[in-house]
Structure formats: structure tokens, C-alpha cells
């Protein structure tokens, strides 16, 4: 039995501890906002926050998150400055990568509330978007960074 927390809720599960976190979230908990895009840790669509760090949930097994605090896109209120900035900048097109982008951005701002453009590029570079929304994502992060938390 593995215990951990998802969006503040205590989870107890006896699922195979090798199961990637992304499937626990999506299948067991019904939190389908976290997307499966490549299963290889290369696209970033499955990014969630684990104990304050942005992590690829397809690369973390259930046993890796024992007692951890996991936050998914569903655990971020829609009034959160990053989500509001995403709305104001009109970021999403197809939207599939956006939960992962948003979670990576929130983790970044959690560590560095006023990142430079270069720091944003560095952190966000591994989150792929095929629709080409990168400039809007960057503007949204800069906008959210200006807002008091």
C-alpha cells in the first residue's frame, strides 16, 4: 500500500508500484488533465508538481512518490495568476500540452518569482508545443510574474 497526496487529498493505493504516476492520476483518480504525450519524458505534456518540483509523471513510478505531495492541473484554482495570465494572453490552441506547460511554469515561478526571459526559455524549453504557442506562453509567464502571489 502506497500513501501519497494529490491536490491535498490523501491517496492510498495498492496498485503495482511500478505503474507510472501519469496512469495513476488519469486512470485511478480520473484526473485526466495530466496528458500522456510520449511516455518517454521528452514532450512534457504530463508535467505535474511533486514536492515543489516540476516532474514528468510518465517517468515517475508510483513507488517514487511515496508520501509525496503531488499537484496536478486540477489542483490549481482557475483564479491562480498563472492560469489567469494564460487566459489573458490567449495561449491555448489545441491545448493538449498546456496543462504540462502551466505546471512547469508554476514550478518555475515558485522557485524564481521574477525569472528573466533566458531563465524562462531554459526551463520551458523541454515542454513541446506543436501548435506554436511558445511566445504566448512566455508572455503569460512574464505577466504572472508581475502579479503579487
Amino acid at each position, binding site marked *: 500500500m502506497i500513501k501519497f497526496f494529490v491536490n491535498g487529498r490523501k491517496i492510498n493505493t495498492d496498485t*503495482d508500484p511500478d*505503474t*507510472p504516476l501519469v*496512469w495513476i492520476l*488519469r*486512470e485511478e483518480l*480520473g*484526473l*485526466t*488533465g*495530466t*496528458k*500522456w*504525450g*510520449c*511516455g*518517454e519524458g*521528452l*514532450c512534457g*505534456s504530463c508535467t505535474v508538481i511533486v514536492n515543489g518540483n516540476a516532474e514528468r509523471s510518465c517517468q515517475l513510478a508510483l513507488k517514487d512518490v511515496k508520501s509525496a505531495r503531488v499537484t*496536478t*492541473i*486540477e489542483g490549481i484554482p*482557475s483564479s491562480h495568476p498563472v*492560469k489567469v495570465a*494564460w*487566459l489573458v494572453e*490567449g*495561449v*491555448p*490552441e*489545441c*491545448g*493538449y*500540452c*498546456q*496543462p504540462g506547460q*502551466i505546471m512547469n511554469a508554476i514550478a518555475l515561478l515558485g522557485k524564481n518569482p521574477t525569472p528573466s526571459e533566458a531563465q*524562462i*526559455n*531554459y526551463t*520551458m*524549453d*523541454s*515542454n*513541446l*508545443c*506543436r*501548435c*506554436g*504557442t*511558445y*511566445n504566448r*506562453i*512566455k508572455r503569460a509567464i512574464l505577466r504572472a510574474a508581475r502579479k503579487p502571489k
Partner: protein
Amino acid sequence: MNEKELQKLSRRAFLGFLGSTGLLISVPGQGLSAIMNTKEHGSSALFAPNAWLFIGQDDEITIFCSQCEIGQGVFTVLPAIVADELDANWQKVRIRQAPVSSEYKDPVWESQVTAGSASVHHFYTILRWAGAQARQMLIAAAASTWKVPQRECKTRSGRVIHVPSGRSLSYGSLARAASSIKPKRDVLLKKEDEFTLIGKGLPRVDASLKINGKARYGMDVRLKGMLYCVMKRPPAFGAKPEDIELSGVASVSGVHSIFQVDDKVAVVTDSPFSALKAAERLKIKWKGEADPHFDDKKIEKILRSALKRKGKVHTNRGDIERAERESALIHESSYFLPYLAHAAMEPMNCTAHVTGKKCRIWAPSQNQSAVLETARKETGLGPRDIEINTTFMGGSFGRRFEVDFVSEALKVAKRVKRPVKLFWTRGDDFTNDFYRPANASFIRAGVNRYDHITFWQHKVAAPSVYWRIEPSLLEDGIDPSAVESIHNSAYSFPALHLEYVWLKELVPPLGFWRSVGNSHNCFTIESTMDELSHRLGMDPLEFRLRNLKSHPRAARVLSVAAEKAGWHKGPRKGQALGICQHFLVYTYIAVVAEVSVDGENGEIRVHRMVAAVDCGRAVNPLIVKQQIEGGLLFGLSAALKEQVSFSGGGVATTGFLDYPILTMSETPEVEVYVVDSGNEPTGVGEVGTAPAAPAVANAVFRATGVRLRCPPMTREAVLTALKESGSKGLNQA
């Protein structure tokens, strides 16, 4: 897809664009059956004048969107057209994906499909009509309630107002009365200056759902008792399973069944993780590959020799020999373009449940008619017993026009008799794509002493996209997509010789890739235009303008892009500007790219891209800008980085490591200027993609004096070209 193909795909004439200034129009055959077929909202639908909307007593207006939301914004753009003519309160509008039904077929293509950048272009008039018809009936209902003449009534924001008395009634309260008014086919459309939503740039209705993780994509479908399926797919074209070794799978829990489906092996389990794990451990011996020696080298050899072959003549206009004699300059160049993948972020998937009497499908598909046809074929059921649910789509770029994944899901669902979600791995996605074809092109063109093009000889050698998709569109062995935008270029080619060499020996399966043939032909034409201007010692903008006399809209976008990009002021230090224009899906676009080239490592940095676009009336300028921006970056990604590799008779590219796409740090600033010409609204989805590569290649030439004719323009390609030319990557041109 070009117009000729569209027309040919059509079995009945488009209703016609009827202008936009208060015309009386008539649209036949809009019935109610589609509404009646969708049961969820029967009770509140008090007033359903046509297939496109219904109004409930609670004032809520539901508008159906026939087109699928792939990211291009149709859920916002199309319903706003209905709502504007209806004078609805946009805040009270609900948008629903239309079911699969004949009412929602594209009027040009007679098929329920979202493709070819056609949604606004093809549906604009019908949707205006639908809103206007409903509005007229609501006015009639109000006038009859008040016993006043209809001409004394007007509408605003979901209410009918009796002007002389100031009385008003909401649409919801009129819904019951309006439903007994006889619908009229002839309705009065608004004048353009009466628009309240069209042209205003409404924010996207799907943004909040997507930002909050609530948008439901195909991958997110969850059904009770659902199984999951991953397939093992042949590693080479033509291969089939010979021997399936199950022993490795024994230790995987949750395996339901493993069986062969055509040339694949289906692994069905009770969870996605089990399916992936079991598929990985399943060992299959394959046999019968079509050509084990098919690889990149072979492709290159075929392409290199292709231009010496004689093809079929598509166009032979004017007297080339005479034009040659009148030419002060004749220039030749050859170009080679690679296979490309779609690489949508959401892997292909489909959920299906097939029982003896009923078939239910949840598909992220842009081709509803093909899904229905596939379901009929696979199940033998009639359309009434087939339910198709279209989900949000995590990108497509043409890939989800295909229904291979739907067919697979149905075959598996029939066998397991339970709901099953079939999904592809990222590797499946790259190795089983319908690729953008490779292409070799040769252009020979002449210019006279007035800097006018005298003749244009263009040979395109490529495998055929349409041969598999719609062979009836091949005319005398010529693939229309391979030659699109050459014979109908915005440039004046007084003499044109256009030839197509069908490379049948190139076996990889092909499909529509955002902008289709334009992705090749815009690159080759616009590179050649640049080469010609350089040989003439002429400004590339000026040379283009001189040859665009019969297309003033093309000249205008070119001038706007040049002005906004500071073409005449010149680039910033160490950078260079490249320019191009293109006409596709009835839309004009011009792009200026600002680049620098690192002579040491060969890296091209694209600093800025400035685009001007004339898509007629921009129904939603915000979404037009977003689509052009996204299209440019999609094209830029391909131009700089993308190429599918082949080896051992199959696809060697298996993931994002082999097929890197554009990232944030490589993304230039993008500025898009919408030049509203007031013409009929035309396409935008594919428009930005085609001109990205030539704009960059032309800028690289001005930065280095090196002409890159074979994308992708990787560091290695740039270094090799610099080495061959002796350029150091600084501004030498």
C-alpha cells in the same frame, strides 16, 4: 488542397458566396433531423428553426458547430457567425459539437470533414443564413404577440424590441411562439456595419476548459468496463507477423487477450500501463517486408535521378522558345525536400464499443464522414445504430483526416465485445504516419530587361498523395497536390511549362500535411524568385512587386509585411532579412524573416518573423493572428529541424529524440498584421506554414551568400554549405 480538387471532391455546387450586404438568400435542405437525433437536449429545445441552433425557455441559445475543434478555433469562430446574425447575447450562447448528420456536411465537399482551411470559407454564408432565419422567426413571433407590424420591431442582444412602444421580449420567452412560425428560406442578412461579433475578435470559448484540464480529448474518454489496446506494428513496409512469442507476456497482469489484426498484433488489457508493458514484452517475428533495402540513401538516389526523367505535362502555356529569346537572364535551380511527420501532441487513439445492434465511437477525428463509413463497413450496421462522438483533438495538422486508428479500434472492439480504448505509442505515431512526401523540383526561369518573368519551367518529382486517398483526382497520372500553387501562382508567368514525375517507387504512405503541396512549391518558387532577383542585382521585394501586377492583394500584403518589418531600413547589425509571398486557400500572405547565422557552428537564429495576411474579412482577427503565428512556427520547425528517416525497409524515426521539433528558445518574435480587404472570408489554418521556409532560406542567403535548397536547414547543412562556398556566415550577399 486547391480549388480544383475541392471542386472535384464536390458532387454538388457550393451554394455560392452571396455577398455580405443585406442580400436575400435562400438555403435549401436544412432539416431538423440532426437535432432530433441528439437526445440530451430534447426537453429545453423549444425553438429549433434549423439544424444549427435551438433556443430554450431559459433564454439559453445552443449553437451547433459542424466542424471539429483541432486547435484552430472553430468552436469560437463559427458559432459567432450564427450568433451575430441572430443578434444573440453571446454570454448566453452554448456551443455544441454537431452530431454526424447530412445537415452538417461541408457544402463544397459534401462530406462532414474539417480540412483544407475551409471551415469559415465554406460555412460563412450558411451560418449567417441560419442565424438570420431564426431571428426573423423570433421577430414574427413578437410582432404577432404584440399585434404590431414586424417592421416596427428590431432585435438586440437576445431580445426583440418594439421600437415605438419600447416593449421588449427575450428570445427565450418567444421560443414557444416562434416554433409555430413557418420558417422562411429567404431571409435578410445584416449589413456589414451591423455586425456585433463578426470582426470583433472574441476570446476563444475553449480556452478556460483547456487551461483547467477539463477539455476532454480522445485519450481522456473513460467508460465503464473499458479495456485498453496497444498494437504491435510491422517494423517495415509490407511485413506481417510470422510468429508471436507470448512467453514474455505471462508475467504481465491484466492481459485480456492478444490476437492478430491484419498485419498487426493487438494487445488488449485492463489498463494502459499493462497494454504498454505487454506490448513491449511481446516478441514477434515478422516476414514479407516489401524492400529491406529501402532507406534514406535509396530515397536520395531516387530523388537525385528523378529530375532527369520525363514526366507528364500539366500545363504548357505560351511559347517558351520565344520567351527564351526575349530573356535577358535565364536561371536554373534544383531543390530537394524531405519526408515530414505530423507529430501531433496527442497520439492517435479511438474508443469503440460494438455490440450486435449498436456501435458507439469516441474519436478525435477531423473526418466524421469517413468515421461513419468505416463503422458501417466494419460493423455492417446502419447509420442509425452508429453513434459517433467527436472529442477535442490534441493537434492534427492533417493526420486526423485519416481514420486508420478508428478502423483498428472497431476491429478490436468487435472481437472483445467490450468498450475498448485503442491508443498509439509515440513510436507508433512516428513510424505509422501518412507522411508529407519527399520531393525533388527543378525550375528554369527567364526574365526580360524590364525585370518581368518571361517563362517558367517547373518540374516536380514526387510520390502521389492522392493516389491512395482519392485516385480519381489524378488526372492523366498527375497528382494535383504536387503541382498546386504553381499553375495558379500569383506571379504572372506568360509562358509556363509544368511537368510532374510520379515517383511510384517511393513507398512510404502519404497524407495531407498542413498546407500539402504548398509546403514544397512555395519554397521552390519563392527561393527561385530570390535567386532571380539576386542575379538581376535587384531588390527582392521590388522584383516580386513587378511580377504581381495581376494580383494587387498579393502586392499589398507584401508591401505591408516589408513596411512593418523595416525592409527599407534594413536589418539590425549582424542580421539579414528575407522575404516571400504566397497565395493559398484563397488567402494572400507575405512574410519577412530576420535571421543571423553563426559561422562557427552553423546555427541559424531566426529573430523575428513578420507576416501580413489578407484572408478577406477576418471573422475573428485574434484567431486569424493565432493561426498564422502557429502556422509560421509549424513551418519554421520543419524548415530548420524536421526530416523523417528510413532504414531496413521501414521508418527509422521513432520519437522526439530522432525528430526534434521547435522549442521555446528557438522561437522568434512573431508579428502578424491582418490586412482586411473586405472580400469573402477565406482560409488561415495552413496559410502560415508554407512561407516560413523560403522566408528563412532567403534571409540566410542575404546573411551568408549561401543558398540552402535542401531543408531541413540544420547546423550540419549550413556548415557544409558554408564550407563549400567559402563563406564565413557573415553578411556577404
